[in-house]
C-alpha cells in the first residue's frame, strides 16, 4: 500500500484566532492546547492535594474520627486516581504538547484537531470521575480497583462505574495523544534533525508515546471486562463460577507498570534538559541516556507481575518477574549517573529549576533503591502493601516526577507565558516543598517496617505510630504551603509588565530560538541550522557547514500512514488482552463450548471477509491509476462483503440468544461474546469509514489525489480488521475443536 508518493496537505494551522472563551474552546493550536492541559492539571493537582491533606488530618492521631471510613476510602482512591490520571500523566503530556513541536522546529502537532479532542476527552473524563462526589457515590475501591471487591455484590453502588467510565474516556484521549506525538516526532522534525540530533525531552516523549500505545489498551480491556461483569452478567473475574480475579491483576498491571514509566520517562527528559543547561555542559553520554530510555520502555513491558508477588503465582513466575524488575534498575541507574557526571566540572547555576533537579536526583535515587527492594521477591513479601510501599512510590512519583515537573515549570514558564517566575519565591517554594516532602514520606519507610498497612482509615495506638504519623501530617501541610507559594508566584509573575527574554537560561534547543511566547506559527524567522542536539550552542560556538545534511525524515511513510500504524499497534494490545482472557477461559465453561458453535458456516462467511481484503486492495490500485469508476466498484464490493460477514455474525448471535446462550451462560460464552463482539464492532466501524469514503467518491471528490490519505488509512484499518479475524477464527472456532 501507498508506496507511491502523493502530496498530502500540510498540517493545518488555525487562521486568525478568535478572542476570549471561544478561542480556548475552538483552538487547535498545540500551544493553546498545551496551556489548557497545564491549567486543567494544575487545578486537578490542587484538588488531589486537598484530598491528601484530608487523608493526613485523619491519620494524624490514632483512632481519629475526623473522617468516616467510607469518606476516607473515597479520598485515598480519588487522590491516587487523580494524581496519576489527571495530574502527572497529562501534565507531562501537556509539556510534550507545548514543547515538542517547538523543540523539533515544527509548526504544530501532526493532527491538530485530534490534539484538541484529546484534551477535551481528558477534561470530560475527569468530570465523569468526579461526578461520583456530586452523586454521593465516589469511587472507593482504590486506584487499581481489584476484582472481586469492585464487582457485584461487593460494590453495588455506581462508585466503580465512575472510575471505570471516567478513565475509559481519558484513556481514549491519551491514546490519541500517543499517536499524535509519535507521528509528530517521526514526521515533522526540522531539516538536519536526525535521531542523534533530537533533544532528550523529545526523545523521552517519543518513547512515552510508544508506551502509551502499548500499555493503556490493557487497562481499557480490563475496565470493559469489569463493566461487562457488573452490567451484563459476564463472569470474567467472578470466582463463584471459576472466573479468575488474578487475570484482572495481570491485565491491570500490564498497563500499570508501564504507566509508571509513562510518568517517569518525560520527567527524565526534563532532567536531561535542565541539568546540562544549568551546568553549562552537554548531557554526559547522550547516546547511552537515550538508549537506556528505550531499554526501560521495552523492559517495562516485562515486569508487571512484580506487583503480584503475594498473590501466589508460583516460584518460577515470581523469580522471572523479579529478575526482569531488577534488570530495569540498571538503565535507570545509568541515567542518574549520567546526570551526576554532567554536573561534575560544570559551572552550576542553582536557579530554581536546578534546585528541583538536584532534589530529584537524591529523591529519585531513594525511590529507585526501594524499588529494587520490591523487585527482590522475599523482601516484597515482607513489605508489600505496607507504608514502605507508600513511601516508595511517592519517592518515585512525587520526589521524582513531580519535582521534575516543577523544575520544568520554572524552566519553561517564561517560554509559555512570556514572564519569568520570581526567583525569591521560587527558592521559598522549593525549600518548603523539599522539606515538606521528605518529612511526609521518609518516615513512611519506618512505619512500613513497623507493619502499618496502607489504605487503612485509622490505626490502633501502638508505640511510635501516633508520633510518626503526626510528623508526616505536619510535612504534608508544609507541602500544601509550598503549593500556595507556587500559585502566588505564578500570579505575581503574570501581573508583571517586564517581559521574559527569548532565551532567559541561555539554553540550546530550538524552543529558545523563538519569541516568548512563540507566535501562532511558532517560528517567525527561519530556523537556525540543526547539526547537533544543541543548535543554539552551535550557533554561538561552532562553525556550521553551509550544507546541512538532509536528515530529519525518518521514514517514507506519510504522516496519516504512520498514524494509523500507531493506532493499530494500540488496538493489537486491546485484542491481545481479550484473546488472553479467551485462552484462559475457553476450556473452563460448563455446558456450552466451542463444539456447539457452527464452525463450517462461520468459515464460509469468513471467506467473505478475507475476500474483502483483496477487493479493497484492488480498489486502491485503481485509484492509483486514477480509475475512479473501478475504484468505486471495488470499494462498494468491499463493503458488501463486509456486510455479509457482519450479517452472519448477527444471525449467529440471534440463534444463540434464541437457544438461551448469552454472555452470562458460562466462562466460555463470556469470553466468546466479548472477543467476537468487539471484532464485530470493529467491522462495523470499518464499514462506516468505508461508507464515508464511498460517499465522497460518489460526489466526485477524488480528482488529483484528493483524499488519498483517507483511502489509505481506511484500507489499512480494514486489512487489520481482517487480520484480527484470522486470529480470532483460528482460536475460537478451530483451536476449540482440537482441544
Amino acid at each position, binding site marked *: 500500500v501507498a508506496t507511491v508518493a502523493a502530496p498530502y496537505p500540510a498540517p493545518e494551522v488555525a487562521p486568525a484566532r478568535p478572542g476570549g472563551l471561544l478561542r480556548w474552546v475552538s483552538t487547535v493550536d498545540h500551544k493553546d492546547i498545551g496551556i489548557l492541559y497545564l491549567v486543567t492539571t494544575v487545578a486537578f493537582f490542587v484538588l488531589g492535594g486537598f484530598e491528601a491533606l484530608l487523608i493526613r488530618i485523619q491519620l494524624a492521631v490514632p483512632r481519629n474520627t475526623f473522617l468516616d471510613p467510607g469518606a476516607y476510602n473515597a479520598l485515598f482512591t480519588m487522590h491516587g486516581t487523580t494524581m496519576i490520571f489527571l495530574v502527572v500523566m497529562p501534565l507531562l503530556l501537556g509539556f510534550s504538547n507545548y514543547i515538542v513541536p517547538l523543540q523539533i522546529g515544527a509548526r504544530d502537532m501532526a493532527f491538530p484537531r485530534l490534539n484538541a479532542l484529546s484534551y477535551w476527552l481528558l477534561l470530560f473524563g475527569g468530570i465523569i470521575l468526579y461526578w461520583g462526589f456530586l452523586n454521593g457515590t465516589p469511587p472507593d475501591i482504590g486506584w487499581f480497583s481489584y476484582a472481586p471487591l469492585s464487582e457485584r455484590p461487593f460494590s453495588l453502588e455506581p462508585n466503580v462505574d465512575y472510575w471505570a467510565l471516567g478513565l475509559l474516556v481519558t484513556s481514549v484521549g491519551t491514546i490519541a495523544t500517543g499517536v499524535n506525538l509519535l507521528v509528530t516526532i517521526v514526521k515533522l522534525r526540522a531539516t538536519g534533525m536526525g535521531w542523534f540530533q533530537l533533544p532528550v525531552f523529545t526523545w523521552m516523549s517519543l518513547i512515552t508515546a510508544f508506551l502509551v500505545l502499548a500499555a493503556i489498551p490493557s487497562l481499557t480491556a480490563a475496565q470493559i471486562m469489569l463493566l461487562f461483569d457488573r452490567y451484563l452478567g459476564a463472569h470474567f473475574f467472578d470466582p463463584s463460577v471459576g472466573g479468575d480475579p488474578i487475570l484482572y491483576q495481570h491485565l491491570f498491571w500490564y498497563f500499570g507498570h508501564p504507566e509508571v514509566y509513562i510518568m517517569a520517562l518525560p520527567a527524565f527528559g526534563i532532567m536531561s534538559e535542565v541539568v546540562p543547561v544549568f551546568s553549562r555542559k552537554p548531557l554526559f553520554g547522550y547516546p547511552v541516556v537515550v538508549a537506556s530510555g528505550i531499554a526501560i520502555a521495552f523492559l517495562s513491558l516485562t515486569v508487571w507481575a512484580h506487583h503480584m508477588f503475594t498473590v501466589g503465582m508460583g516460584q518460577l513466575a515470581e523469580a522471572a518477574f523479579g529478575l526482569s524488575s531488577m534488570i530495569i534498575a540498571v538503565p535507570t541507574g545509568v541515567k542518574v549517573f549520567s546526570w551526576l557526571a554532567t554536573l561534575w566540572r560544570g559551572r552550576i547555576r542553582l536557579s530554581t529549576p536546578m534546585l528541583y533537579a538536584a532534589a530529584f536526583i537524591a529523591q529519585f535515587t531513594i525511590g529507585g533503591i526501594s524499588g529494587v527492594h520490591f523487585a527482590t521477591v522475599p523482601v516484597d513479601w515482607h513489605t508489600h502493601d505496607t507504608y514502605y510501599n507508600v513511601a516508595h512510590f511517592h519517592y518515585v512519583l512525587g520526589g521524582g516526577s513531580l519535582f521534575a515537573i516543577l523544575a520544568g515549570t520554572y524552566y519553561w514558564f517564561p517560554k509559555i507565558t512570556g514572564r519569568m517566575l520570581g526567583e525569591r519565591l521560587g527558592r521559598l517554594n522549593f525549600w518548603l516543598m523539599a522539606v515538606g516532602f521528605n518529612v511526609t514520606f521518609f518516615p513512611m519507610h519506618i512505619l512500613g517496617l513497623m507493619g502499618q*498497612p*496502607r489504605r487503612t482509615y485509622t490505626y490502633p495506638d501502638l508505640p511510635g505510630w501516633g508520633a510518626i504519623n503526626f510528623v508526616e501530617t505536619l510535612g504534608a501541610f508544609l507541602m500544601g504551603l509550598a503549593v500556595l507559594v507556587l500559585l502566588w508566584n505564578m500570579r505575581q509573575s503574570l501581573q508583571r509588565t517586564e517581559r521574559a527574554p527569548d532565551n532567559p537560561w541561555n539554553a540550546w534547543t530550538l524552543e529558545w530560538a523563538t519569541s516568548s511566547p512563540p507566535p501562532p506559527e511558532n517560528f517567525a524567522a527561519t530556523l537556525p541550522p540543526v547539526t547537533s542536539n544543541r543548535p543554539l550552542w552551535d550557533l554561538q560556538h561552532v562553525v556550521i557547514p553551509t550544507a546541512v545534511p538532509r536528515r530529519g525524515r525518518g521514514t517514507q511513510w506519510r504522516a496519516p500512514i504512520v498514524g494509523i500504524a500507531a493506532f493499530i499497534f494500540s488496538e493489537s494490545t486491546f485484542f491481545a488482552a481479550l484473546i488472553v482472557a479467551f485462552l484462559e477461559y475457553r476450556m473452563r465453561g460448563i455446558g456450552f463450548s466451542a463444539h456447539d458453535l457452527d464452525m463450517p458456516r462461520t468459515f464460509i462467511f469468513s471467506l467473505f471477509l478475507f475476500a474483502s481484503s483483496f477487493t479493497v486492495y484492488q480498489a486502491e490500485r485503481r485509484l492509483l491509476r486514477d480509475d475512479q469508476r473501478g475504484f468505486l466498484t471495488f470499494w462498494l464490493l468491499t463493503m458488501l462483503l463486509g456486510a455479509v460477514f457482519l450479517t452472519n455474525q448477527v444471525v449467529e448471535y440471534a440463534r444463540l440468544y434464541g437457544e438461551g446462550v448469552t454472555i452470562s451462560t458460562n466462562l466460555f460464552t463470556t469470553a466468546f461474546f466479548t472477543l467476537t463482539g468487539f471484532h464485530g464492532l470493529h467491522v462495523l466501524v470499518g464499514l462506516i469509514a468505508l461508507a464515508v469514503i464511498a460517499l465522497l467518491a460518489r460526489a466526485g471528490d477524488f480528482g488529483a489525489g484528493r483524499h488519498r490519505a483517507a483511502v489509505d488509512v481506511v484500507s489499512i484499518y480494514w486489512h487489520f480488521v481482517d487480520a484480527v479475524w484470522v486470529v480470532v477464527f483460528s482460536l475460537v472456532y478451530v483451536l476449540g475443536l482440537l482441544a
Partner: protein
Amino acid sequence: MESFDPVTRQGLDISNLYRLELIISALLLALVLGWLILALVRFRATPGDASEPAQVRGNRNLELTWTIVPALTLGVVFVLVVQTMRSVDAATPGATRLQVVGHQWWWEYQYPDLGVVTANELHVPVGTDLAIDLESRDVIHSFYVPRFGFMRDMVPGKTNRMALRVDRTGTFDGVCTQYCGLQHAWMRQRIVAEPRELFDAWVAAQRAPAVVTAGSPGQQVFLQNTCVSCHAIRGLPAAAQVGPDLTHFGSRTTLGAGVLTNTRENLRQWIRDPQTIKPGALMPAFDTLSDQDLNALVDFLEGLK
C-alpha cells in the same frame, strides 16, 4: 522495628536478605548523595563568571562501569533472592495443618487435624512446622503478621500455601494487607505463640464444646434472637458460619477483629451498636434488647471460656 526482629524461621531468612540489601543500598545512596553534594558545592558558578566549562560529552569506560557493576551486583543479589524464596517456601513433611480463611472483616482459623475452629485470635505452638492454607470467602485479603516477616494473599477461588515455623513465644498482632473494603482497617488479628504444653492445653479447651448451663437466661437470649443466623456455638443448636465462631468467645482478648478489647462493657456496646464502633461491619445492631436481656447475654458470652 518489627522488620529486624522476626520470630519465624522464614522471617529470619528474609530479614537477613533485607539487611544485606540495606547495606548495599546505603553504600549506593552515599555514593550518589556524596557525588551530588560535592558537585553542587565544588562546581557552583561564581557570580559574573561567564566562561563555559570544558564540553565533555561522555566517557565510555565510566559508562560501561556504571552499567556493568550494578548489573553484576544485582546478579549476586538475585542468586540470594532465589535461595531465600526456596528456603521460605520449603514445605516440611508432617507439618501441622492450619487453615486461615479471610472474611469481610474478620479471620477464621481452623486446625483441621486438631478439630479446632476459632476466629481473630490464634494460638500456635513454637518450634513446630505449620502448613498454612490461605483462602477467602469473599474478596482478596492478605495474611500478615509483621513479626512473622512475610505475607501472602487470600484469593477467592484459590488456595495459597505458606510454610511457617514460629520460634519464639509471645503475642504478635497482625493485619490484613490487601485493601478489602470499608473496614479493611479493622481486620486485625492476634497470634499467641506458646510452648507445646500450653498450646496442647489450649487445643484441648478449644475442642471441648461450650460449657453451658441449660436454660441460663443469656443462652435463651442468644438462641431466641437472630444471633444464631450468623454465629455458631458448639454444644448448642447454633451452627451458622457467617460470622465468627463463638464457642470459646470468652477466652479471646479482642472484639470485632481488634477494634475493641474484650471487656464486659465493650461487649455491651458492641452488641447494642456495632455500627458506631465499626461502621459497615456485617453485624446488625441489637438495640431493642432490654438492659436485663443484654446483661444476661453479656454474662453468657463472656462465660464461654
